[in-house]
């Protein structure tokens, strides 16, 4: 865990940014604070009434007890009713703030999806998006309210005490800064231990689950005892380290209580002293004793939530660092191509980190033909696809959709022309139908008709719930072959002009793979279809093969390629030989 220190100015900026998100609901926020303040005032008034009555009794003045009781009840019920009115403002601010940040995240993703890969930093960002933003509830709900309460309530109590006896309030003022100072000191002391602590022990609860879920693997390898001992040691070390850390951090809890009651005690002593020297009345004494702790209570609570706030600020730092790092972009106007019959690649070169991946290629793809791009992994097959999708731009040369240069097309234009499907294209949690319907304007029965007509996804109709079967998170309830069939069917339902399939047949069995290849061939009858694979034998059925070898590119019919191209031939036979094992002994 990195401990990027966030300095004071940055902290201020972050708080400001968090506050900016709720500008529009400021009114509601202040109203709800105002009502909670009124509630506090009813309490003060009640204390006031009680103190007056006590004074009268002590001074043996006749009092009307029933009347004061009624008065007290009225005050309290009034406070209750006022507060009930405020309940509609509860929770609004926090929801608003978090939703607003979430929306910004979505937009940032929309504009920058090309930059996100399946790597750790993206996973982190997704975690921030889902759990981090919600954790800001502490800031919006708890911290802001406590902050506000501290200011208003304390000032009120301070003024009241000041009127009783100015010096008593002075004691409050002198002690007040001790609370934040103590919190700061504790945080400094524990930050160091904290660092050590997280680095060495991590999260025992996850370790526990992790070990248990691999228990049978450990059983097979006779390693359970070792893992158990190791877990127990780690858990114990973690516990001891936690207690060490807490023995520091909890000091602030005790310290804050000490400051609070020292304040009450000292100023109380001073007040009583004044009473005994007759400079204030018994009413003032009693009123003071009743309200004195109200001064410190909200500050103490604020102190308790300080470490939560620090965690929130760290999270806010991650959130806004991300949001600021991505740019919203402006693009040309959409051209809205109605149809594309031809894709032309002219004198195209592409290099990455000074290394040439593709040099000076010329290709024409036409409607009605089935193209394959073959090559070993890392040969630049996907790079070519990314260039066509404008996810990368060429170092030299041009790409044309009919006669439109790719440079003049917007992202929206291209996404309307080209469909790109790879083995790790995303499957949404929901039903099979939920996944299909996003691709098309067809309704459910038309989709079913389309699938049956084209002999697609027969497996789904055998499910108990048919197309309404759940696919699970990322499609995990489907087999690899089924997932890939779903991806292909989804893309075929969509109305694009160029279809690129990137390694869509890897990691599935021969049978499913043949099914998919047949699907692609039928699609190629009136579209441009480009099929990318590292398996040489799968390209033999296509109309034209583009074979990439060592930055060079060969375009040919498959049978000619197998005859003339030495490198392709070698790869083809090597793969064939490897697969021999599958026919070793015929059954």
């Amino acid at each position, binding site marked *: 865990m990195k401990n990027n220190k966030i300095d004071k100015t940055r902290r201020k900026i972050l708080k400001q940014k968090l506050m900016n998100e709720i500008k529009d609901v400021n009114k509601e926020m202040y109203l709800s604070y105002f009502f909670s303040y009124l509630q506090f005032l009813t309490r003060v008034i009640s204390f006031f009434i009680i103190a007056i009555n006590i004074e009268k009794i002590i001074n043996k003045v006749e009092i009307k007890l029933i009347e004061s009781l009624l008065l007290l009840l009225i005050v*309290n019920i009034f406070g209750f009713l006022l507060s009930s009115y405020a309940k509609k403002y509860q929770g609004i601010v926090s929801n608003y703030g978090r939703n607003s940040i979430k929306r910004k995240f979505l937009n940032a993703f929309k504009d920058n999806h090309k930059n996100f890969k399946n790597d750790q930093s993206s996973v982190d960002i997704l975690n921030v998006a889902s759990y981090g933003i919600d954790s800001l509830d502490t800031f919006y709900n708890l911290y802001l309210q406590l902050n506000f309460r501290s200011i208003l309530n304390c000032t009120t109590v301070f003024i009241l005490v000041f009127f009783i006896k100015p010096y008593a309030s002075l004691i409050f003022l002198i002690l007040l800064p001790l609370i934040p100072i103590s919190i700061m000191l504790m945080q400094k002391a524990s930050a160091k231990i904290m660092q050590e602590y997280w680095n060495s022990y991590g999260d025992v609860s996850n370790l526990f689950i992790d070990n248990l879920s691999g228990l049978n693997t450990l059983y097979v390898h006779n390693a359970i005892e070792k893992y158990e001992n190791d877990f127990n040691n780690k858990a114990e070390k973690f516990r001891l380290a936690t207690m060490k850390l807490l023995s520091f951090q909890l000091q602030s809890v005790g310290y804050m209580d000490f400051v609070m009651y020292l304040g009450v005690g000292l100023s109380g002593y001073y007040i009583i002293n004044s009473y005994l020297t007759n400079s204030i009345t018994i009413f003032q004494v009693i009123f003071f004793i*009743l309200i004195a702790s109200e001064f410190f209570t909200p500050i103490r609570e604020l102190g308790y939530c300080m470490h939560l706030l620090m965690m929130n600020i760290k999270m806010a730092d991650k959130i806004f660092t991300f949001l600021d790092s991505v740019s919203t972009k402006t693009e040309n106007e959409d051209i809205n191509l109605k149809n594309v019959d031809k894709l032309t690649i002219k004198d195209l070169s592409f290099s990455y980190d000074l290394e040439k991946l593709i040099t000076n290629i010329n290709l024409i793809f036409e409607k009605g033909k089935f193209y394959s791009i073959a090559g070993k992994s890392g040969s630049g097959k996907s790079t070519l696809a990314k260039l066509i999708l404008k996810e990368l731009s060429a170092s030299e040369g041009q790409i044309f959709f009919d006669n439109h240069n790719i440079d003049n097309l917007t992202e929206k234009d291209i996404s309307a022309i080209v469909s790109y499907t790879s083995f790790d294209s995303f499957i949404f949690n929901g039903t099979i139908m939920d996944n299909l319907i996003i691709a098309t304007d067809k309704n459910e029965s038309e989709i079913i008709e389309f699938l049956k007509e084209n002999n697609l996804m027969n497996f789904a109709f055998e499910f108990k719930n048919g197309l309404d079967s759940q696919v699970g998170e990322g499609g995990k309830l489907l087999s690899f072959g089924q997932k890939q069939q779903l991806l292909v069917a989804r893309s075929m339902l969509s109305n694009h002009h160029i279809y690129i399939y990137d390694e869509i047949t890897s990691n599935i069995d021969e049978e499913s793979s043949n099914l998919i290849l047949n699907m692609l061939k039928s699609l190629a009858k009136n579209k441009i279809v480009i099929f990318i694979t590292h398996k040489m034998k799968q390209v033999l059925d296509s109309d034209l093969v583009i074979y990439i070898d060592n930055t060079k590119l060969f375009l040919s019919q498959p049978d000619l390629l197998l005859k003339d191209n030495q490198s392709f031939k070698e790869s083809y036979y090597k793969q064939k030989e490897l697969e021999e094992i599958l026919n070793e002994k015929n059954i």
Partner: protein
Amino acid sequence: MKKTFNLVKRLILFMKHLMPYILVAVMFAIMGFISVISISYILLESALNKNLSLNILWILVFLAIFRGLMRYGEHYFGHYVAFRSLKDMRSIVFDKLKKLSPNKLDNKDSGILIKMIGEDIEALEIFFAHTIAPTLTGTIAFILLFIYFYKVHYLLAFLSSVCFVLLAIIMPIFYSNKLLMLQKQNEVKKEYNSIFLDTLKGIKELIQFNYLSNKINEIDLKSKEVNLKEKEIAVSNYNQGITTYLIIGFMVSLYSYVALNLMKIDTHNNNYLLSIIVFVSSFAPFLELSRLPLGFKRAMNAADDIFKLLDEEYEVDNFNDFKEHILDIKASDLSFSYGSDEVFNNTNFNFKNNKIIGISAKSGSGKSTIMKIIMKWYKLNSGNIYFNDKNYDLYSKRSIQNKFVYIFQDSKIFKQSLRENITLKNNNITDEMILNIAAKFQMKERIVKEGLDSIVSADSFSAGERQRIELMRAALKEADFFIFDEPTSYLDSLNEATVLNLIKNNFKATIFLISHRPSTLSIADEIYEIVDKKIVLRR
């Protein structure tokens, strides 16, 4: 009721070594509570007695320090109990699952079971650390206060008791539907998060299919639902808050009225007045009780689950070790049922070593089960198994397992260093051995790139790489038999061929190959099939 009582009793016995710490925490809480009341009490008393010596100042300072210390102690020991109970319960459960392995966790739902265990332990931690102590504190505070108020006047004792019961018991019952609301909110929140994350992860697809705006509408709708639920809870919390204040305001008024009324008769007794101050400063422990974090029911369910697990019986494995190499496995009249499903009925077979033995069948027909029976994971219903003509019932489970390596279909990657993932903490395996094996399984480059010391998780590797790591683990172990359970089920023909080559070239002992694919079974010397609950030789 009796069941609950027994559960609580057993829970307390279960963690009885923690009880002293809980009591210490409670003692600190009570002392802290008394010191707070004392401060106001002493102040008012000196005012009423018109007697303020410097000593009182020192007492006040002492009380403030004392209060700070008590507060610290209360929290320290509270946390001590929390972390200690977590650690102890995890150790106990780990040990139990070890004794119950491998069959306890050998099913599809084991993931759910483990997750449940984790949650149950955390629920019990809350019970020990955050339920028992405040309840005890509240009860003791109640008794002490009752005695005090009773000494002042029985009416005041009655009034204060009513107030405390209202706050600590009646109110939480009145607002108990909140637990249900929280549960519902959690569900909706999970759904919302899932849609939100799915949208982010699938944003490319949504743009490609021009569906993003629809999805955003969906998110907004769900978010409104979440907001509604969150608001319901916020409102309920708020209502509870203001009702609390109303009760306190009402009771303080009533109490003062009664006390002052009593004082009218007995003017020289300051105790009535002082008791008002005591009453006003005494709500804290009862308010804490009204905010207990968890329903009692949840803790009892958790206790029930955990005790059920701990009560499960296991076989003591105190047989002799099977020391010789297994050359021959025979079964006679073997029958086995899994629950009420009969898997094998009076079947016989004889597996000899140094061959590749294929086992073919549809899924669910017991292909893996037969292997697990041979490894003694499961107990036979009837019949016998013989290793080298010796009845395997007479030998220890552990020593038999040492003769077999079972290679799982889904290999488990632990969140630990890559080295440990390969050696499984067997220190006899050197880095050199790892790299040699890695080279054989075409993983050397990958492993060197990742680094043996780097902490990895399942996401660090592709499915194919995970499988190779599992194969390397197996290859590093010496055994008489290697059992491959569907090693090629998610592979295309090219990868299928690669994996089969790896298996054939690197495992020189007897190999069991379980598969439904004819192409995979083609490398087997013999193929057995499971037909009508019997094992038959097909080739």
